[in-house]
């Protein structure tokens, strides 16, 4: 699966500048996937849950309506940055309109409680400190991406009939010095310990590929994947 064989969705979109139907479909798929970060951004921006969701819908609709949101950069670079920029512009425009509508009424201060299930239970990292909307967006982006990668890996393995492998071996995706001995896993799967080691290695490899594939869909150039990966890693570390 080398990059030269498939166009990523983003390259598709950027090449056609959103004009043809294929690109549009690709765009809508991407938007579907990354709905959560947009909502997170909007919430951090000081809106209540349902207001944020409404706005997110409006934002995507506008995006898909064609062309770009006024002021956003032409389609270049990464989808994430593009989306963020577009979102910022959109939010700024929206606020102007809100203020205009309310004639200087106060904003609704959304309480940041970090426990909203509309953005997906578990997608949230409980965060005590208030953070900037940009950071929230990035972090939510990273989480969404990871979740998608895991899910696609799981469904791949389910299709191959290796769901048991996935279930038993998934703790080793992160753990290096394992708490549970591999002999247990070996017994559960009916394999030898050496075969378990091989299987773990292969699972990790596939997971990495899955993550990178996910990232690759949102970047234009092959070399950007690494950079993007590291950037996302940084956001999750919280630095």
């Amino acid at each position, binding site marked *: 699966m080398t990059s030269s064989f498939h166009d990523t969705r983003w390259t598709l979109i950027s090449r056609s500048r959103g004009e043809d139907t294929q690109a549009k479909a690709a765009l809508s798929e991407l938007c579907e996937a990354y709905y959560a970060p947009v909502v997170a951004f909007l919430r951090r921006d000081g809106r209540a849950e349902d207001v944020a969701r409404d706005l997110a819908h409006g934002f995507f609709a506008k995006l898909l309506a064609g062309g770009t949101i006024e002021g956003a950069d032409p389609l270049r670079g990464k989808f994430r940055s593009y989306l963020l920029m577009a979102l910022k512009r959109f939010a700024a425009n929206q606020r102007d309109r809100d203020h205009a509508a309310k004639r200087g009424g106060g904003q609704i201060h959304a309480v940041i409680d970090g426990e909203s299930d509309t953005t997906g239970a578990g997608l949230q990292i409980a965060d005590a400190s208030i953070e900037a909307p940009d950071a929230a967006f990035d972090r939510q982006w990273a989480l969404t991406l990871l979740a998608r990668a895991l899910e696609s890996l799981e469904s791949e393995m389910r299709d191959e009939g290796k769901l048991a492998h996935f279930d038993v071996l998934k703790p080793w995706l992160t753990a290096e010095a394992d708490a549970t001995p591999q002999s247990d896993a070996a017994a559960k799967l009916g394999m030898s*310990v050496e075969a378990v080691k091989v299987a773990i290695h292969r699972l990790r*490899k596939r997971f990495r590929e899955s993550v990178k594939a996910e990232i690759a869909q949102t970047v234009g150039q092959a070399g950007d994947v690494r950079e993007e990966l590291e950037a996302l890693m940084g956001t999750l570390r919280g630095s």
Partner: protein
Amino acid sequence: MPPNEVSGLRGMFVCNLRCHLPHAVGTMDSATPSSDPFHGLNPADLMAAAALPTDGGADTLPLAPRDLPSLAEIAAAFPDLEIVDLIGHGGMSAVFRARQPKLDRVVALKVLPKSLAVTPGFAERFTREGRVLARLSHPNIVTVHDFGESGGFCYLIMEYVDGVNLRQAMRAGRFTPEQALNIIPVMCEALQYAHSQGVLHRDIKPENILLDAKGKVKIADFGIAKILNEDGDGGMMLTQSGAKLGTAPYMAPEQIEQPASVDHRADIYSLGVVFYEMLTGELPLGRFAAPSEKSDVNGNMDEVVFRALAKDRAMRQQSAGEFKTQIEGIASIPPMARRSLAWRFNSFEYKSKRMLLGMPLVHITSGIDPTTGRKRTARGFFAFGDRAVGVFAFGGYARGCFACGGMAVGVMAFGGLSIGLISWGGLALALLLAYGGMSVGFLSAGGIALGWGAAGGFAAGVHAYGGQVYALVGGMGDQVHAPHLFKSFAEMPVHLQWLLRITRQFAFMTAWVWFPMMMPSVLVPWWARRQLEYEAQGGEQRTTAWHERPSRVLWLLPASLLLFLAFIWTCRHWSSPGSSGVNAQTFIASAIEFVGFVLAAVSLPLWLRLVPMNSFYGVRLPSTFVSDERWYDVNAVFGKHLFIWSLTVIAAGIAGFYQLPRHQDAYSWAAITLTLVAAAASVASTLVWMHRHPIGRPAIKSHWLVRNLELVIPVVVLMMFVRSFIARPYYVPSGNEPGVAKNSRWIASHLDTGFEKGDLIAYAHENGQTWLARVVDVEAKGLLLKRGGNPEEFLMPWDKIIGKMLFSYLSPGAADAAGGALPAADAPVVKGTSHALGRQPVLRFMRVKRSRQEWQAPLYSPEGMQLNDEVLKRLVRTTAGGNMQGNGADDCWLQLWFEHPDFDAHSSYGVEIAGADGLPLKDRDASTAGPVTTLGAPSSQWLSFSISPGRVGKLPAEVQITLRYSIGPWQPGMMLPADYNGSMSFGGECMLAGFGDDSDHHAFVSWSMSSDETFYDVVARLKDGKSIGSLSAGRTSYGKNTVQRVKFLASLREVESFQIRSRQMRSVTFSHVVIPPFP
């Protein structure tokens, strides 16, 4: 954009949004709880894990270096191969998985960069090295199939290994020492092989060590370093991600500093680094910790690793083979004798969970309790320790009901210093009985004995006996200072006599009883320590074989007790020999037994795998040292066989003490033969086992017939020994011995366990046959015997006595004599008659008829009741019945049936009738008919008679019936040779009338009797050896005398002799017998 198109898209988008979003919940109305998409893992870690490079794994996505060729390029360059995919790359090469269609196999294609290929001199180096590599053929080295240049690429075609490399495996999970020790020696072998071919690896690192799914190890990239390097360059190869600075940590110092002079010892260094990393997970950088500190590998392994990592290569192991031997040498200290943990348990405590009477069942301690700083005390039902308190206490200081130890206090105390109710020991103080070097107590015996009753070398007390005696009341001995001097044993007071008797009898045994006392004190703490260690290593959770559990050592206790008892038994024979005293026989038997002890003591530890592997004690064949597991298995098999055979040798030795003089000479040789056969059988069985369980291959399963074929000869020898010297079966075809049935089989013992009157003995007759006789008396020179047919007693000397009959088995039942068949002269079988002889016959039923009538049903009981039993009816129908005809038409006849289980062919004598008042009846026919031949099952014998009670119309209502009969075993009487002339009287009341041939050429014998207390019978012994019984030929009474005549179905010519036999005549009277009505 046309609006509808947009809206269409938008609609589609919105719909999608609402329905299909996997994680961001679609509906705004209700919150759908979604399951954890991260499966419990930390997202930050996941991302970090995703960011790791895989170092040789496929970072396929856009991490390609400039030079990395694409699949298409490679496929073009190698038209003969089908390129499947890229499986890895290093800094300088890429490895693809490919298929050789011609050979239909999967191979690994390693491609070197084009830039290298054009380097001057590279091609020659490549070719040269390639040839060297292609020669390396070893199961643990990745084989090079082909190499060359194609399409501008230099390539190597290698064996494809479906697995991971060591780096990946280490990341997948930490290696246990066992796993590491499975891999490193294999690699040492491969390295040794390569070095012997003159090939160095120079780049040993975990990435170059491949493990397949079956755990097989393969070293890859041998010598590649040499191909790729310039002449002086150390080859700092950077991996793609730059995460690690190449292979520098694995390189020996001289490889970095003076690369030109590198030799094979650099590989050893690298291997040492890999080994260390496998064990500890870290690289040995700077001042690094010893492997045993960071993992639970054996502490002695540290030295080996340090040596391999020595900076100075002269200090390292000088060859990979040496490295391997050292590793295996340490590793071979098996878990059973591992020292690294054991000696940490110098101070330990083992308390069993089970409780008995409120205290732990077993409590074993040793050393000092660190919390209190004092010595530990064992408290439990069974307590072992430096200080032990319990019901059974063993220890340095022991207290309890039964205390054994250095200082023992208790109800029964054994020990150096023993205090108690009964004590035994060096210094024994007791309330009741003290026995020891110095003993003080109510009754004391010993070297120095003080007490109420004292016996010993120096004895002082109220009553005393011994060497130097000081008594208050009375004493006896060598030097007695007492008011009263006992002259004899019997004069002494009872308690002193008792004391002397038991000490004399048990002195020797009690002197040795310390041995079985000591064994638990030594073995149990040893076991407790091992058991704690075993549990600490989690042994309890795994299923382990019995020979890996520490508790196997406790088998030594019953084994040593058994051997001790055998030893005591032997000593008794020395201390109190039998009638023949201590003779050569005693020596030989003791020697055999001693050899048995030695064999048992030597073999049992081997069987229990208590002996650490060594090259001296145990089976010393070279093939047993291949691996320690093999050594233990082979020695366990050998130990098992030898131990079992040693028990037979000990038993044979004990049997030697009990040999009859007849067997003594043969015994010595036989016992020695048995010992040698036992040893040989153990060896043979071990060799057969080794053949059937080859190393590394599955065991050969042989057919059950073949399985223990090697035991056939030894077991046959053993059976012969047993048969000759211990016990054997005998078959008795004939005989006249009371209590011995014909054709019976007996088991006889050949041991001299004492003879008593009445024992059945087999002895050697002068004609060579084995005869039976019974013991009348035991004499010094032999046994006084008596045979059944002969009243004479005779002395049989000892050397003719073969053995004593113990019991019979498979005896034939009592012969059933069918009506009319030749009565056999069988000796009556004891069984069945012993209880029946006490019973009297029963008058079962009867019927009446007139003269000239037929006998008809029904049958009546003696009380007059009608019987309708079908069985009886059938019984009666089968009898002849007889047509009794008297003289008169008015005569009536009464048919009687008597039953007794022991009726036989000669039982009946006659029946008489009398009136109810006992007076004889008048008016009746005086004939009697009967008995009808006995019928029915052998166990239910019937006699039937017909007698007249009177005439029609004048029948009495009740009568008295008297039956005369004889039953039971016969007493043998005189024997008459067939040519006897003259008369003879036997029994005092009988006179032989004569014998001869009658008109039918049947031999007959007749005699007259004057009393009818004894019933006589004759058995004819024929010249051909057979015996036949008699048929009654008539009995006539002349007044008081009765002449009886019997005949035989043989003529007098055929008869050798006549044997008279007799038995007691009995009679039984039935009164108030009701005459039944006419039918």
